[in-house]
C-alpha cells in the first residue's frame, strides 16, 4: 500500500530538528570563531583547537572523565553481570527484592543520589576525590548493566546450561562456553549505556568529587559562572565528531552483520 506523504509532517519534523540541533550548530560554529566573545563572529580561526591542548585543566578533566567512565563501567559490568546471574538462579522473592533495590538509583532524582552518596562518604570518612567519584559512578552504572543483561538471561534456555553440566563441564566452564556467548550482546549494550551515562553525568559527580579532581561536566559548570572558554567548544566538537564516527561505524557493521546472517539463512 502506497501512502501519500503529508507535507505538513515534513515541515513539522524539520522544525523539531531545527529546535534540537540549533544549539549544537551554534556551538560547533563558534568553536571556529576567532573572537573570544560569545555571540560575536570575528572570522574563521582554528586558534581554540590549538590552545585546547595546552589547557592543562581541560586536559586533566578529560582524562579524569574518560578514566572514570571506563573503569566504572568495567567494574559495573563484572558486579552487574554476576548479580544478574545470581538473580536468575535465585528464588523469586530474592529476585524481586534485589530488583527493587536496583531500580532505586534510577527512580531517585540524580540530586538525591548524589547527596546520599556525599553523606555516605562523609560518614565513613572517605576524602572526596577520585575514589569517591569512581564509587559513585559504579553505583549508578550497575543498574544499567543488570537491566540490559536480565532480558538476555530470560530468553536463555535453562536446559542448555544443565546439559553442559551433565556433559561434565564445571559450572564455570558451562558459564563461559554456553551462557556468556548468549548474553554478551546484553553486556555490551549495558557497557555502552553505562559509559555514556558516566561521561554525561554532571549532578552526581558534582556532589561526590573533591576540589582537586574534576570531570569535564564539573569543569564546564564551574566555567559557566565565569564565562565558558571557547576551547571547551572546540573540545566538545571533537568529542561529538568522535562519537558520531564511532556510532556510524557500529551501525554500518551491525547492518552488514544482519545482512550476512540474512544471506546465510537463505
Amino acid at each position: 500500500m502506497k501512502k501519500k506523504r503529508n507535507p505538513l509532517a515534513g515541515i513539522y519534523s524539520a522544525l523539531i530538528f531545527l529546535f534540537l540541533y540549533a544549539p549544537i550548530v551554534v556551538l560547533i560554529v563558534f568553536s571556529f570563531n576567532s573572537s573570544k566573545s560569545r555571540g560575536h563572529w570575528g572570522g574563521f580561526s582554528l586558534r581554540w583547537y590549538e590552545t585546547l591542548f595546552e589547557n592543562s585543566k581541560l586536559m586533566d578533566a578529560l582524562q579524569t572523565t574518560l578514566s572514570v567512565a571506563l573503569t566504572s563501567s568495567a567494574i559495573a559490568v563484572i558486579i552487574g553481570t554476576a548479580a544478574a546471574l545470581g538473580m536468575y538462579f535465585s528464588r523469586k522473592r530474592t529476585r524481586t527484592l534485589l530488583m527493587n533495590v536496583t531500580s532505586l538509583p534510577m527512580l531517585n532524582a540524580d540530586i538525591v543520589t548524589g547527596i546520599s552518596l556525599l553523606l555516605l562518604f562523609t560518614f565513613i570518612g572517605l576524602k572526596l576525590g577520585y575514589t569517591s567519584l569512581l564509587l559513585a559512578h559504579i553505583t549508578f552504572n550497575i543498574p544499567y548493566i543488570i537491566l540490559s543483561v536480565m532480558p538476555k538471561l530470560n530468553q536463555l534456555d535453562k536446559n542448555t546450561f544443565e546439559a553442559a553440566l551433565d556433559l561434565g563441564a564445571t559450572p564455570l566452564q558451562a558459564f563461559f562456553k554456553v551462557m556468556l556467548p548468549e548474553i554478551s550482546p546484553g553486556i555490551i549494550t549495558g557497557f555502552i549505556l553505562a559509559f555514556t551515562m558516566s561521561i554525561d553525568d554532571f549532578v552526581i559527580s558534582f556532589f561526590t568529587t573533591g576540589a582537586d579532581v574534576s570531570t569535564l561536566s564539573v569543569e564546564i559548570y564551574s566555567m559557566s559562572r565565569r564565562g565558558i572558554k571557547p576551547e571547551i567548544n572546540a573540545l566538545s566538537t571533537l568529542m561529538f565528531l568522535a562519537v558520531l564516527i564511532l556510532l556510524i561505524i557500529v551501525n554500518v557493521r551491525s547492518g552488514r552483520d544482519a545482512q550476512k546472517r540474512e544471506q546465510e539463512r537463505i
Partner: protein
Amino acid sequence: MKRIKLALIPYSAYALIFIVAPILLILLYSFQDSSGSFTLENYARFFDLSDPVYLKVLWRSIKLAVISTVICLILGYPMAYILSRLPARIRGTVSFLFILPMWMNFLLRTYSWMSLLERTGLINSLIGWFNGILPSALQLPTLDIMYTQWAVVLGNVYNFLPFMILPIYTVLIKIDKSLIEAAQDLGASRGRVFRKVIFPLSLSGVVSGISMTFMPAVTTFVISRLLGGGQNALIGDMIENQFKVVGDWGFGSAMSVILMVLILLTMNVIQRYESENSGGSVLM
C-alpha cells in the same frame, strides 16, 4: 547451582552500602540539628505557613515541570506519530537523530541556548535583520525571555523532549496494524481511528514519556541556574545551596526527603493510572 548464587554476594553487599545505607543516612540527617540531636525543625521550617519561602519554591518547581511536560507531550506526540509512519528502512536512522544530540554534554547544549536567547543574541539579531527588510506594519517583536521562567521551561523542553518522543514512538510501532485496518473496514474515519484505536493503545508510551520528562524537570538545578538566573530558583537549587553554600545538611536532607516522597507519589499515581487503563482496555 548453590555456587552460582554466591555471585549475588558482591552485589548485595554493594547495594546495601551504596544504595540502601545512603538513603537511610539522608533520612537520619533530616531529623538532626547541627549538634546531631533529634529535631523536627528541618521539616517545620520547610512547611512554615507564616513564611512560605520554600513552599513557594516547591510550587514553582512543580508548576514549571508540569508546563514543560505538557509542552513536551504536545510537541512530542505528533513527532513520534510521524516517525512511526515512516518506512521501517529509514525509521532507525531518523530515531537515531533524536538521540544524537544527547551525546553532546547537556551543560554545553543548555549554555548554548544563552547565546541564542540573549537580548543581543542570535535569535534577536535574526529578528532585527527581518525587521530591517519588512514593512513597518509587519515588525516582529524582539524575544526577551532570558532569565525568566519561560527560559527555564524552554531549557526543560529542549533537554527532555527526546525522552517524551522515544517511549511513545516505541509503543506506536508495536501497535498491531490489523487493528487499525479493522477499524477502517468498519467505516471509522481517520480521526476516529486515531481517537478510538491508536491513541488509547499508545497510552502506556505516553505515561512513561510523562514520567521520564516530569522527573528530571522537577529536580533540575542546572537548567534553572543557567537560563533562569537567580530569581527562578527551583527546589533542586535550594538543596544544592544547602549542601554547597550554606552547609546546613540537616535542612538539605529534609528537602531531599520531601523531593523523594514527591517523586514516589507521582510515580505511584502515574503507574496506577497506567495499570487501570491497560486493564480496562483488555476488558473492553
